[in-house]
């Protein structure tokens, strides 16, 4: 792996390297660190009558997090996002594996098909789902014409519709990182495993999955946290009936005009992200032990 050159003999990065890094550092400072610090400060502030932030210290925004209603919001958000992540892995892994192992000419086309949905606006696609799922919509019409159902199924504005919408939205974010790992998968490892009389299942569980696990963890990070913060799907497909964390945050910044409370919720999301990240990076490969 080291190609005969030990790390210590490589020239150490000089001060000029930092110059190259400068754009990145400035970017991170302006767009990541500064807003986060601001969010943190706001979360301890109050609001005035017009909803402007007043810099008077209060911990109320955090104590409000422990109200019963908020716990329901957190619990439900985690359940929805967790289920979305699980379904994305279930559906996305085989797809990513298939694409990654197919001949390179087909691969480009298949990859493009995964990304095609991004070519149109997300809101337009959400409305398209409304058209498909509504009581007099395409799906119900199709099933009725085949005489499979007599009464239209109640699909739109249900948790099922929300789950479907979330799965649809985040699936590409699971497929792409897993594909990345599958593509780099060394075929000789699989051959070696087969040569050593491992069953296909054993090969998968002990060789393929551990080698592609980094892709899965990246996928989890890309799906789980954004799914918690999603509000458009629950509004459009769920009829805004059940608020998830994203909806509550959005509401604080628009209708309720309570930025400090919204900031406190934002900090909670940040903590959730860190927790997910630590969990993913610590656990490593599930079957390596």
């Amino acid at each position, binding site marked *: 792996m080291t190609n005969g050159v030990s790390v210590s003999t490589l020239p150490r990065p000089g001060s000029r390297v930092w110059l190259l890094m400068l754009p990145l550092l400035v970017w991170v400072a302006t767009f990541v660190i500064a807003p986060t610090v601001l969010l943190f400060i706001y979360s301890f502030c109050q*609001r*005035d*009558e*017009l*909803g*402007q932030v007043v810099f008077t210290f209060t911990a109320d925004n955090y104590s*409000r997090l422990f*109200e*019963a*209603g*908020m716990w*329901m*919001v957190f619990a*439900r958000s985690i359940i929805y996002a967790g289920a979305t992540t699980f379904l994305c892995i279930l559906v996305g892994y085989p797809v990513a594996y298939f694409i990654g192992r197919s001949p390179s000419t087909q691969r480009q086309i298949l990859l493009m098909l995964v990304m095609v949905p991004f070519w149109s606006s997300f809101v337009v696609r959400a409305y398209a789902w409304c058209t498909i799922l*509504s*009581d*007099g*919509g395409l799906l119900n019409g199709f099933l009725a014409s085949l005489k499979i159902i007599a009464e239209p199924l*109640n699909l*739109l*504005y249900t948790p099922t519709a929300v789950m479907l919408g979330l799965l649809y939205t985040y699936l590409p974010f699971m497929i792409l990182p897993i594909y990345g790992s599958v593509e780099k998968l060394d075929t000789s490892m699989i051959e070696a495993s087969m040569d050593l009389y491992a069953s296909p299942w054993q090969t998968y569980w002990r060789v393929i999955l551990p080698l592609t696990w980094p892709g899965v963890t990246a996928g989890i990070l890309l799906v789980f946290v954004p799914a918690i913060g999603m509000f458009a799907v629950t*509004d459009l497909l769920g*009829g*805004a*009936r*059940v*608020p998830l964390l994203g909806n*509550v945050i959005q*509401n*604080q910044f*628009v*209708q*309720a*005009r*309570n930025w400090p*409370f919204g900031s406190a919720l934002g900090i909670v999301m940040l903590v959730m992200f860190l927790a997910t990240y630590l969990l993913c990076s610590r656990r490593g490969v599930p079957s390596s032990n």
Partner: protein
Amino acid sequence: MKWISCLAVCLLLIASCDKGAKSITLLAWSEYVPQKVIDGFEKETGIKVHYDAIDNNEALVQKLLSGASKYDVIQPSEYIIEQLAKLNKLAVLDHSKLPNLKNIGSQYMDMPHDRGNKYSVPYMTGTVGIVVNTEKVKEPIHGYRDLFHPKYTKRIVVLNDAREMVSWALNCLGLDVNEINPRSLAKAKPILADWVRLIRVYDSDSPKTSLSNGDCDLGVVWSGEAAKLWEENQKFVYVLPEEGTHMFVDSLAIPVDAPDVDAAHQFINYCLRPEISKLISDEFPYTNPNLQARKLLSQKQLDNPASYPKGEAKLGTFRDIGKASSDVDALITNLKSQG
């Protein structure tokens, strides 16, 4: 090289345009000022209109206060005018520059939120009421109590607006919708908790959609939406709730730091002209407070029960409730998340 020269020409064009012509910036609801009105004003006065669109009153306040850009004319509803005026964010109107103000009906002038119309002129008014799909719902519906009945479970769409919802419950209790305090909210809570279980969709942007495609049979919506449904199919009947309901007054006002106060007055006065105000009614069938414009409307427009409801109803405007707005929001969020 070609594209650089192209870009340069474009920039020059933009620069030359901006230098000569006067312009005003309008901060208004999306789809509320018809393009025809803007084109007509630009053509007549040579003043260019930039239209910055918002979707709700709260976004308007936010954009205005952020100070990122200056606006000449804004379009807040009644309780927002009161709030902005209290905080000295609005310019006092010069009525001598608004001769067309005389066209507004006296019942829409001098209202509690802006005595003497010091800061605002009514643009369009409307009500919040109940739409009934009479093909699906045969029983008569007179008010919120009839509507929020277990037999209509998951057939109801309502505005996704916490303050509105709380006001309906307060109306049912016979309480003042502008007296928001822990006591009145505690009384409203059990009623709202029952309602939340019956509602299928919350939608403020286009509540008519779920009614017109049949996902819901009953709704509590803006009267303009109801009027469009009635135009589409007369099975959609509009009912003003007998318990009383909200009459909103969407208005035009000038921020205190408006760059061009004269041009702003000019624009407001233009919108108050009967023939211009009629154009607004044609596209957005709310209740036109401009009585001279009403004379120009067709009989069909005037017969639309959602735009011009007949009969007596207890109508009330909203007043500024200050910080209580976040209590109202917390109440509804809690109920929704437990429901």
